């Protein structure tokens, strides 16, 4: 709980005495395709924090990252790194380490030569390069692999070399451009924790770009959710999960059911039924609205069991049961809503497992369904 309050506080604003390492001010990018790739994005990131920019493909997250790296110049707005504007600084003069989607390791060099490359290009003292390279090979747990060619390394080892190469010159900022996207799930999860460990060990400020919500929740101190070039929310993972700022965020993170209706005092009204929920933001009763309820916050029981504490109780029939290993996902048909509601059931070994076509009752508390203004 303490952890959560800390991170949400930092996400809102850094302490006054430490200027943010990265400051993005009203940055826009217009490729001239009609809509802006990035639309007036602003955020601050303090020293040593791990930020993930999360969004579907085409959300503008990679464009924003490339502007911070200096490969693209914003149409308008400013970017400050370490308190200095970098708008006129080319990428090779910025103190930024970057790990690329396809890693972009140099195949004609050994692993150690790859790591030494930025040191040589940045004219570090040649006498000190071998020691530094060895230290970073150890950091990524590949000591002894320095003389291997890139094609002699496994996918995970290549990831580690790429991150060592991006960090060896001790940049002010580390950028990760979806480097884990191509890995299989097991390796990806292992590398997520590895990135986290290395980032904590060096304390380097990091911006990660991904479309994988799980990765964002696992690795980050802070998350920014982007869509259509627009920043929807900037918050800690826990805060983002519990209090999504709008319908897009609520749908993008977690598994939820969406219910269309009209906002009413204390919930959502549709076809004569009123569902208990909490209205978000500026939503006024009578406006077209959508209720979002997370699959794990819906309680499920046999029809005769009363669901104490649930303001909303509905009857339904199990339409499908999906086994996900550590949990079950029920698809429950609810005639009163003429739609299906998704329900997670943890502990699939327990006796209270429902079969398809079983009648059930569903319930949730008013605070577990957030009602958002319906956007087209």
């Amino acid at each position, binding site marked *: 709980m303490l952890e959560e309050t800390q991170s949400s506080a930092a996400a809102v604003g850094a302490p006054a005495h430490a200027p943010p390492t990265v400051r993005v001010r009203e940055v826009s990018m217009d490729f001239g395709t009609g809509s802006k790739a990035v639309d007036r994005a602003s955020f601050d990131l303090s020293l040593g924090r791990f930020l993930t920019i999360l969004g579907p493909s085409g959300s503008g997250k990679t464009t924003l990252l490339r502007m911070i790296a200096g*490969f693209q110049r914003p149409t308008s707005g400013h970017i400050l790194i370490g308190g200095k504007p970098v708008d006129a600084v080319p990428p*090779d003069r910025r103190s930024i380490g970057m790990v690329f989607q396809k890693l972009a390791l140099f195949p004609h060099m050994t692993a150690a030569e790859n790591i030494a490359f930025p040191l040589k290009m940045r004219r570090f003292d040649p006498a000190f390069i071998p020691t530094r390279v060895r230290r970073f090979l150890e950091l990524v747990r590949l000591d002894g692999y320095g003389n291997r060619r890139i094609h002699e390394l496994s996918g995970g080892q290549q990831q580690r070399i790429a991150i060592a190469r991006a960090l060896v010159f001790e940049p002010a900022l580390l950028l990760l451009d979806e480097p884990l996207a191509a890995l299989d799930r097991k390796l990806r999860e292992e590398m997520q924790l590895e990135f986290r460990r290395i980032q904590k060990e060096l304390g380097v400020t990091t911006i990660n770009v991904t479309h994988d919500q799980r990765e964002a929740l696992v690795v980050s101190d802070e998350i920014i959710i982007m869509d259509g070039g627009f920043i929807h929310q900037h918050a800690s993972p826990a805060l983002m999960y519990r209090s999504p700022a709008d319908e897009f965020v609520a749908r993008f993170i977690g598994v939820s059911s969406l219910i269309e209706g009209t906002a009413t005092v204390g919930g959502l009204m549709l076809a004569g039924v009123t569902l208990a929920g909490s209205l978000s933001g500026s939503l006024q009763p009578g406006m077209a609205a959508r209720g979002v309820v997370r699959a794990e916050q819906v309680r499920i029981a046999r029809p005769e069991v009363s669901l104490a504490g649930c303001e909303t109780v509905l009857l339904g029939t199990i339409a499908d049961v999906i086994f996900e290993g550590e949990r079950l996902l029920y698809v429950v048909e609810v005639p009163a809503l003429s739609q299906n509601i998704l329900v997670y059931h943890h502990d699939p070994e327990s006796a209270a497992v429902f079969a398809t076509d079983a009648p059930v009752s569903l319930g949730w508390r008013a605070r577990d369904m957030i009602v958002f203004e319906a956007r087209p």
Partner: protein
Amino acid sequence: MPPSIKARYPLTWRVMDALEWLADRLWPRSMSRHTGWLLIAPSLIIVGSLVVGMIEIADTSLRTLDTATFRMSESYSLANYQKLATSDVYLTVAWRSLLGAVLTTALTLILAFPYAYIMVRTRSAAARKALLICLFLPFFIGQVVRAYGWLIILGNDGIINQATGLIGLDPHRFLFNFPAVVFGLVQYMLPFAVLMLAPALTAIPEEVETAAKSLGASWPRTMRHVVLPMARPGLIGAGLVVLTLSLTDFAMPAMLGGGSQDFIANAIYDQFFRTSDAGLGAALTLLLVMGGTFLVGVVLSVFGAGTLAAGRRA
């Protein structure tokens, strides 16, 4: 509704079925593991006939021409090779061919690399198409017509000398010297080199260059430390093709050299078709083949086979 029973496969499918049936009769399935040999047999026969020709040439090179009867001698001797070894003329021709080929290769690669790089990397589809068209245009014109074009442009009474004459300069002799031949060869070889380099450069992901930049390498250093080393197989492949083609070239020395800048191929032509000394011509031919093979061997052992290694890792 289910499809009609009378529905038939398209004609092309039925033709393919018939061809497969025929192929099965002509070349039974049990022979299928030899199919690879069957497919390369025609090429092997064509290349093999070259070997037969080479043996014939080797035989001829050991016979001398009897100037009284204009027939080749019945007996073998090394007289033709002795003549070549002791003659200043042929030494000069061989040296000129070699120097010309090496210079042409170097100049062509220097010019072809930026051309191929820009063609591969440009974001404008129109620019890429224009560069490709400029590349293929000379292929449609042919070597002799192109060389003749240079005569019109660079000749003593050519376009350039007419233009400089207007501002009072005396005509300059551009043609019939060594630089003119090298110039013509470079112009002839450029498309070959670009076509060999382009796939090698396409194989270098643009992200690698972006990465080099983010790691602190300026544009020239990215070229020097990343792009050039990664393009090496393409440079070697293109270099070998240009080197062998210009070493054995005939038309450019003949037309732009005006008889004063003969390469070995011109000397061979003279022996076979002017003085009719087939023995000496054959000896020159063998020398050219062996010299070229030796040169290619040196390049291969120093630099590796490049893209010509056909998929093997360098």
